[in-house]
């Protein structure tokens, strides 16, 4: 779909260029070059726009001003009469062309390069010869330098008359990048540059973005750039090259909206004031500490904290140092775990990922995993099962009979449970931390950990504090069960997050998995399974079944924006007709929300990364016919294939021939069918 417009223009232009007098075209091995002018005659003081059009062989590309990791932009050498001045080459927005681990920026099929020639007032009327020696590089798998020499004459007269090609030139020039309507700033972190800009209104949902830098050697040409939204502002995380010290970034910001690319010219300035949370180091430390303390009363952490506190005060009769040592180990567990998380995030920042705190929650797999963990803890608190012999080190919250390592492990557990939660003050502190060098970031995280550990640490440090807590008694059992509910509350929240990240049926599967999990634990508690290996076998099988949704989740693309393909549209017979008339390959998916087979096919095949990539690669138009509600139009379409129900999968190739796929799909079947649909050409009539 990309640049179909320019393909059509290119064709028209070529025809006109060949037919009009004075137009010249040069054929090279892999391109046909022609030059067109937008004027027949020009008045002194006016401007002429010349356009070099390269019609490129399939698979070959030419380059943008910054060619990327390799390649060469075109070089023009003019021989102009006195009073005429040629501008630099002006470019249309480029494409990113990947070759293995490297990337180029350039054009496929058709490339247009524009030059403005200013005619001085002093130039007298007459015919002037103009000579252009153009050198450029075209590459497919190999590179071939090509060139063309054009000689033509320009008539200077008392009036500027536009040529027949002027309109096409103007229309092509209109696809040049327009300046971005609002201000764009950028900020540097280690190894990363973040572009900040406000969304452009009413252009539709942006699914991805890419910044093409005009200047070379500033940012990575090949690394993916992550687009995220925060407080109504877009942020594009770009991997920068080492030693980048630019104060301004200029180039083209390309936003992908639906199946169209919108390109804007930007000249971003370095800014430190743009951070919504620009606080100082000590303030960040203080806020991290406060945030950590408040974390203790958040629904996720509170159960762990309370039970630990109760365990501590239950063992008040022991020696002071014994208790203190427990408290210190617990704190150490928390702090070391936070440092570990911080290290992971810092290391990930250095790679082509753009991450922030909470990054772990962007992965549905992690969310589902935490959901399972919280749920199991909730079940334990409710009394559905007790931790068995092998888990006694980590369990036994209330009895206080923990060993030293158990206290440490409880600290680690508290830290793990705390990570999906945020507390007031934490956000600002973490936002600050992640823009700073590693040492400072880690100090803030240590402060957060200390804050989280503080209540228990204080209780063990200052025994009189422990006396504030109520004396142990039967109420502890009730209290323990009560704490299951904040835990389940956190589960519900995590489930809600999961629902945003993946399709509804996945959430359903995860819930089934949780049910299976609770059944497993209840069963284990009831049936004393140790020693009986076939009962243990059932236990293991059920456990695996309950974990199956997690396995499935990691097969799915983790896009948090939309699970639709970029060129997915709602089905209508007219749309189908138009696409077929234009020799476009189409995939029609007739489905319904209540159709289990449809949903199964979606999870297993249609929504996997491999199939989505195939749809993009082969440029297939994906039409989805949703028959969840009564719809006569869709029914009529189904009837065309003698079907009365869904699912129905039809693939049309470029000749318009329809192939109906079986009702149970496999990945390879679909990918092959898509490939065949794309690669049939109108010349291969069977």
């Amino acid at each position, binding site marked *: 779909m990309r640049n179909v417009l320019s393909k059509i223009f290119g064709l028209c232009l070529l025809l006109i260029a060949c037919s009009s007098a004075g137009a010249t075209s040069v054929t090279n091995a892999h391109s046909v070059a022609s030059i067109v002018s937008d004027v027949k005659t020009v008045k002194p003081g006016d401007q002429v726009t010349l356009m070099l059009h390269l019609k490129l062989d399939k698979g070959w590309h030419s380059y943008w001003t910054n060619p990327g990791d390799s390649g060469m932009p075109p070089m023009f050498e003019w021989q102009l009469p006195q009073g005429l001045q040629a501008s630099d080459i002006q470019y249309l927005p480029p494409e990113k062309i990947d070759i293995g681990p490297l990337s180029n920026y350039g054009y496929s099929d058709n490339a247009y390069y524009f030059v403005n020639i200013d005619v001085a007032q002093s130039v007298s009327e007459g015919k002037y010869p103009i000579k252009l020696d153009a050198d450029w590089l075209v590459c497919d798998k190999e590179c071939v330098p090509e060139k063309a020499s054009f000689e033509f004459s320009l008539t200077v007269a008392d009036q500027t008359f536009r040529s027949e090609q002027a309109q096409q030139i103007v229309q092509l020039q209109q696809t040049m990048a327009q300046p971005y309507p609002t201000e764009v700033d950028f900020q540097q972190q280690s190894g990363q540059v973040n572009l900040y800009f406000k969304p452009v209104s009413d252009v539709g949902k942006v699914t991805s973005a890419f910044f093409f830098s005009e200047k070379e*050697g500033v940012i990575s040409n090949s690394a993916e750039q992550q687009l995220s939204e925060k407080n109504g502002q877009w942020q594009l995380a770009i991997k920068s090259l080492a030693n980048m010290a630019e104060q301004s970034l200029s180039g083209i910001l390309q936003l992908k909206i639906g199946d169209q690319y919108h390109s804007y010219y930007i000249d971003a300035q370095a800014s430190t004031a743009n951070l919504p949370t620009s606080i100082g180091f000590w303030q960040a430390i203080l806020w991290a500490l406060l945030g950590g303390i408040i974390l203790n009363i958040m629904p996720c952490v509170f159960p762990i904290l309370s039970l630990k506190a109760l365990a501590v005060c239950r063992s008040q009769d022991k020696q002071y140092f014994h208790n203190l040592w427990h408290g210190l180990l617990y704190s150490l567990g928390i702090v070391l775990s936070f440092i570990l998380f911080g290290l992971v995030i810092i290391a990930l920042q250095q790679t082509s990922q753009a991450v922030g705190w909470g990054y772990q929650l962007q992965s549905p797999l992690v969310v589902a995993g935490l959901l399972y963990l919280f749920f199991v803890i909730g079940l334990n608190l409710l009394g559905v099962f007790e931790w068995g012999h092998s888990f006694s080190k980590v369990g036994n919250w209330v009895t206080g009979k923990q060993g030293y390592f158990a206290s440490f492990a409880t600290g680690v557990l508290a830290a793990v449970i705390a990570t999906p939660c945020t507390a007031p003050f934490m956000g600002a502190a973490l936002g600050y931390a992640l823009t700073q060098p590693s040492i400072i970031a880690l100090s803030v995280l240590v402060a957060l950990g200390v804050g989280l550990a503080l209540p228990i640490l204080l209780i063990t440090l200052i025994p009189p504090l422990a006396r504030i807590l109520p004396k142990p008694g039967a109420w502890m059992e009730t209290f323990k069960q009560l704490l299951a509910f904040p835990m389940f509350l956190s589960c519900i929240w995590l489930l809600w997050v999961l629902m945003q990240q993946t399709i509804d049926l996945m959430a359903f599967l995860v819930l089934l998995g949780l049910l299976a999990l609770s059944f497993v634990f209840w069963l284990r508690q009831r049936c004393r399974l140790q020693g009986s290996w076939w009962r243990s076998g059932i236990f293991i099988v059920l456990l695996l079944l309950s974990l199956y949704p997690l396995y499935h989740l990691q097969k799915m693309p983790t896009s948090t924006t939309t699970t639709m393909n970029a060129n997915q549209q709602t089905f209508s017979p007219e749309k189908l007709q138009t696409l077929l008339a234009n020799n476009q390959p189409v995939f029609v998916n007739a489905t319904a929300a209540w159709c289990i087979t449809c949903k199964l096919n979606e999870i297993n095949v249609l929504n996997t990364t491999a199939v989505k990539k195939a749809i993009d690669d082969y440029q297939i138009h994906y039409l989805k016919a949703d028959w969840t509600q009564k719809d006569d139009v869709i029914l009529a379409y189904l009837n065309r294939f003698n079907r009365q129900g869904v699912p129905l999968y039809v693939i049309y190739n470029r000749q318009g021939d329809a192939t109906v796929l079986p009702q149970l799909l496999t990945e390879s079947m679909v990918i092959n069918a898509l490939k065949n649909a794309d690669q049939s050409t109108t010349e291969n009539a069977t």
Partner: protein
Amino acid sequence: MRKTRSLFSYIAALLFTFSSLQAIAAQHDETLKIGDKAPSFVGNELDGAKVSLSDYKGKVVVLEWTNFDCPFVRKHYDSNNMQALQEKYTDQGVVWLRIISSAPGKQGYLASQSDKNRAKQEGENATYTIIDSNGEIGKEYHAKTTPQMFIIDKKGNLVYQGAIDSIRSTRTADVAKATPYFKNALDEVLAGKKVDQPSTTPYGCSVKYED
């Protein structure tokens, strides 16, 4: 004590994770840092002998990524520029290693005996031509184009990486007109001076790694 040992193993795991994550992160940096130790490597040269960077401790080493069919490489070989540089500096004791990182089937890969002969003949002024067909050495050095030049000083540190000269074109006539970044840097290294422009943007065809 068993429990203290568990604590220590946890800390050890932490440190290990940190260093491996840093190593992974370093792999993802796109250029080497000037002044860092140049990555060591072992490769096979044209006649099959093993060549290792560590063989040349105490010498200045030049790495030249090449692909004899790339028009940018041809610019420097057809003009005899590259061969002249190779001769001049190997006479001064510089070790000059040409590296071909083209994957099998791609441009520049030495598929036949006549290819190997041609490569040998073109590189006869250099010390060795190394075949890096799995691209490992290329990826360690983040070689992106052919030609691309690296200079390693006597201590084994990277002191220059980038283009051979300043004019990005395929015209042999431009060799004489361009600023010879690489040659200037090499002269500075041999004179014991600090390299003025240690990092320039390389130009050329892309290195033909496997897809």
